[in-house]
């Protein structure tokens, strides 16, 4: 690798500047706005927004947070968001992990077919996937039709419930999980697996003591990414969910677009950022810690 500090930095600066200006800066400005600072780049949005809490000097005011976080509706939405996120991550890890593991251990035609199937949602725009899921689990959808013909005549209508939201989030998240976990498991050398089998480890034991510990990095990536993308989703809960309670993505869009209360919407955004950061750091911490105690590095 050539040492060219100036040329290198110049060449990488366009995307870095783009991200700094349109992601880094707005996040800081949004945090300031939620604490009542309406100057600078926040001045225009503050002139448009309604029901704002303005700070008069000092560090700012937490009044907007107080308003949003004592709102029963918002709290329920927050709970829904957390629940859907946790369930989705768990199911995606099991489902994608199962498919990827099967692919790793069998490698046969069925395994390839199954993993090919599992990445299909990646080929479909999320809007379409969301709509398709809403129709599939609707009162007159194929899910209930199938159930009816199989003798389950009062199968629930999942559309417009948390059930459909969760199903939709799982549906769109599975491909990424399968891709990353499959490539992670593929990186575990055959020799390691065979060695464990040779000394008499059962298949389950091999999976839990060899393959999974050696694939810590992809597992962490899938977990955090799925969690972050679910928390930041709008399309799936908007398409498949009830009007209330729904996930915070829908609520903050409503506050922003329909109620014209951008400050409240940004408070929710900051709350979701904080939750995402918490999940991220919890995972990093857990992994650093277990990596240290078990001596296995990812």
């Amino acid at each position, binding site marked *: 690798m050539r040492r060219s500090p100036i040329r290198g930095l110049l060449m990488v600066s366009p995307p870095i500047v783009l991200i700094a200006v349109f992601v880094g800066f707005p996040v800081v400005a949004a945090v300031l706005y939620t604490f009542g600072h309406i100057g600078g780049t926040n001045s225009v949005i503050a002139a448009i927004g309604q029901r704002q809490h303005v700070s008069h000097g000092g560090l700012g005011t937490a009044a907007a947070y107080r308003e949003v976080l004592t709102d029963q509706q918002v709290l329920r939405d927050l709970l829904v968001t957390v629940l859907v996120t946790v369930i989705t991550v768990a199911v995606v890890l099991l489902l994608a992990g199962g498919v990827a593991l099967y692919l790793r*251990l069998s490698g046969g035609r069925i395994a390839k077919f199954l993993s090919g199937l599992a990445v299909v949602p990646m080929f479909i725009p999320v809007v379409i996937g969301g709509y398709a899921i809403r129709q599939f689990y609707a009162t007159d959808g*194929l899910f209930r039709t199938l159930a009816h013909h199989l003798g389950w005549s009062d199968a629930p209508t999942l559309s417009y419930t948390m059930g459909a939201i969760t199903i939709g989030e799982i549906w769109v998240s599975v491909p990424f999980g399968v891709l990353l976990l499959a490539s992670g498991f593929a990186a575990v050398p055959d020799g390691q697996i065979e060695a464990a089998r040779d000394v008499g480890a059962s298949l389950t034991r091999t999976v839990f003591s060899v393959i999974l510990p050696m694939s810590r990095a992809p597992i962490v990536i899938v977990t955090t990414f799925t969690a*972050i993308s679910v928390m930041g989703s709008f399309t799936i809960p908007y*398409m498949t969910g009830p009007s209330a309670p729904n996930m915070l993505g829908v609520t903050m869009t409503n506050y922003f677009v329909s109620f014209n209360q951008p400050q409240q919407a940004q408070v929710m955004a900051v709350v979701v950022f904080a939750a995402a950061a918490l999940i991220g750091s919890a995972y990093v911490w857990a992994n650093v810690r277990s990596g240290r105690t078990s001596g296995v590095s990812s």
Partner: protein
Amino acid sequence: MTAVDVTAPLEVASRPPQDRPRRRLRVGQSLGRLALAGWVVLIAAFIVGPIVWLALQAFATSWRYPSWTPDGWTLHWWQFVLSGSDLSSAVGLSLTFSPIVTLVSAVICLPAAYAFARYEFPGRRLLLVSLFATNAFPKIGLYVAMAGLFYWLNLMTTFLGVVIVQLLGTVVLMTWIPSAAFAAVPRSLEEAARDAGARPTRVFFRITLPLATPGIAIAMILSFLAAFDEAQGTFLVGAPTYVTMPTKMYELVNNYPQQAAAVFAILLAVPSAVLMLLVRRHVMGGHLAAGFQLR
């Protein structure tokens, strides 16, 4: 636990130890096969069922629960959608934004991708990871947070605003994947060309770039798709002036007959599905996953 569910049938299905009694083996094997078949059918229904159901609706006159078949088949909804002006304007906008975003993204990111792969400079690793900031924030929250700046810069409901919001979703793809491609070009080839007297620019255009082209092409297709399918940010920034195909879906699903919405959905899904099929092998082959192995 699923991990166990999957491996249980597998244990008997995949080359069992020879000292196991044959009879037990056969029973176990067929039970395993059955469980596996059930598992495959369930996943297939879960993944493909909704899409098939949506596709069928596009050709149905009406459908009454719990009938297996619709009351009749028709192409009426295709005519309805194709003759309407909603479609053409949304398609036109989508096909304007996506190529522009892809090109701008390539111009901004490809030099950076090369630099990340070939130059050593202070903060290289940190900067490479920091590009990831767009994906580290929950998306809709990020778009809502961006609104203040967009209002201040007068970018709300503007063409440029939509380009920027879609551009942000392509930066990681357009930097990481080509960077891995540039890094994979053997340095010995470049050195050999230089030893033979080729100038650095000539080496780049005759050796490095052609060898990295597949990776760049994949990044461009994925970026095009990311822009083409982007709905949440485009909706917040562009609506109601700039309504692309995916944002149109938000509106259609509540106001259109469901069969017409199904037709629109299929029309929107076709370009994505075709382009994805083109890059399928590379995405599955680990290009995407390779992007996450930061060097």
